[in-house]
């Protein structure tokens, strides 16, 4: 009987299990415990959360494995970690640690300005950010098993995640209206692999799970992203930069399950304390816009 590890089905399978959930950024074992107890479906182990990375400046790299190991020991839910765009050696280290999902992330300083990681040859699954359908399908072409919007991480401002999710969903709706003989032109225009354009048109959704990330700070933000078509939500700085992280974490989890139910959203949004301080996107210089990293 054959037993195959690291196949695309097995990678996408874990992404499917994380649907309808919240993936939270954590920097310590204590935070990981708060996230798990709040109902997070996975945690992202980081040295610093994105808003602090923004403030610190300099080169931001893969988290020290010792921090990731502590977090792995503390929780039973899957643990994700970030590597730099194009830095396949960091990814190899994360895979050797038995990390459950690798985020090839624009939040860290890119290691390669031209090439993303060739992700098919890894056993660990990858998630990658995108701003539009073309970028999503290029990453899936390289082997990504999950796509998330880039949004603008560490800002607490959901506007960019909305822009990116609307762009992806709008393009998919458009694809579904086209004749098959029009899809090669779409492939050319999107700069996306033709076979994946065909598959997306046939399925009417991305060929891998499609999550939201980059600026989600409140239960209402989470509901907004789910209603726009996200299948799960990543929350980075939004939880541990709020005035009451445990309460905010639980509220966002509940908002993702009941994203369609305004009565529930009203109840959980009431008296939450202060959300993280946000940044207006126009105040960021071009070099501060993390979403421009990668292509």
């Amino acid at each position, binding site marked *: 009987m054959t037993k195959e590890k690291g196949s695309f089905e097995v990678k996408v399978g874990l992404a499917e*299990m994380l649907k*309808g959930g919240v993936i939270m950024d954590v920097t310590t074992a204590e935070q990981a415990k708060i996230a798990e107890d709040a109902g997070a479906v996975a945690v992202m182990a980081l040295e610093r959360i994105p808003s602090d990375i923004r403030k610190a400046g300099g080169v931001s790299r893969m988290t020290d494995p010792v921090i990731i190991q502590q977090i792995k020991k503390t929780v*039973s*839910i899957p643990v994700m970690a970030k590597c730099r765009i194009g830095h396949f050696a960091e990814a190899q280290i994360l895979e050797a640690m038995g990390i459950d999902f690798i985020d090839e992330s624009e939040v860290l300083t890119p290691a390669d300005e031209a090439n993303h990681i060739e992700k098919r040859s890894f056993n660990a699954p990858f998630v990658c950010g995108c701003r539009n359908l073309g970028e999503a399908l290029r990453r899936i072409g390289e082997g990504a098993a999950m796509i998330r919007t880039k949004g603008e991480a560490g800002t607490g401002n959901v506007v960019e995640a909305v822009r990116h999710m609307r762009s992806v969903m709008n393009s998919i709706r458009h694809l579904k209206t086209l004749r098959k003989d029009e899809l090669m032109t779409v492939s050319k225009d999107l700069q996306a692999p033709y076979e994946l354009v065909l598959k997306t048109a046939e399925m009417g959704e991305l060929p891998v799970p499609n999550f939201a990330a980059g600026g989600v700070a409140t239960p209402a933000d989470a509901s907004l992203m789910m209603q726009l078509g996200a299948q799960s939500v990543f929350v980075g700085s939004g939880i541990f930069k709020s005035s009451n992280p445990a309460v905010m974490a639980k509220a966002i989890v509940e908002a993702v*399950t009941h994203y369609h139910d305004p009565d529930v959203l009203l109840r959980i949004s009431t008296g939450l304390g202060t959300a993280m301080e946000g940044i207006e996107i126009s105040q960021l210089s071009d070099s501060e816009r993390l979403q421009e990293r990668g292509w």
Partner: protein
Amino acid sequence: MRLVSYPIPKDSRNAAGKISKVEQAQKINRLIGILAVQGDYSCHGKIVQHLGLNVRWIKTPGDLVGCSALILPGGESTTMTLLLKKYGLIKPLKDFALSNPVMGTCAGAIMLAKNVYDTRVEPLGIMDITVCRNAYGSQVESFITDLLLPFNGSSVPIKAVFIRAPKIQVESPAIQVLAEYENVPVIVRQDKALALAFHPELTGDDRIHRYFFQQVAGISINT
């Protein structure tokens, strides 16, 4: 490979979230509840809809009204435990599953067990099995394999996807072991309850769901 031919499932309610009287009249015994607090419920929904049955996402206790069978999907069992408690679903699901057909895959199978080797999970206790969560290791140990389904009278194996999979331990003669992998039970049945350690909903092969509806639940489906 993900499902390519099945449409995205829709909850059988109208846009306002109300269950119409017509639906209640026409779709009796054709309504399948799928627990939708978290997990790969949409994958189950696609197959259920493909087999000609109606889908009801279960997020609150009231959603169970009118359903004739229940599916507990894959996901994270610790997260599910927290959410079921929070949403007041433990007792309603337990009561429903004790008197109606139920199928659980992976985390769903864990929730059906009497015992789980992890205090963070509080299972519903429907089947006489003990489950060890995440028994094969982290995601890099997840795998896909060919699995024969002798109970189904078919010589064509199914592609069985094991994702951070649990191991099932049989605790009473009431449990029927329908399939094993490496001498560990991976499909078990107890009367109208069916538990699987893997994910038949991920591959688009509908044979397990057909077996569940026809042989376990006694619900007729599209052939």
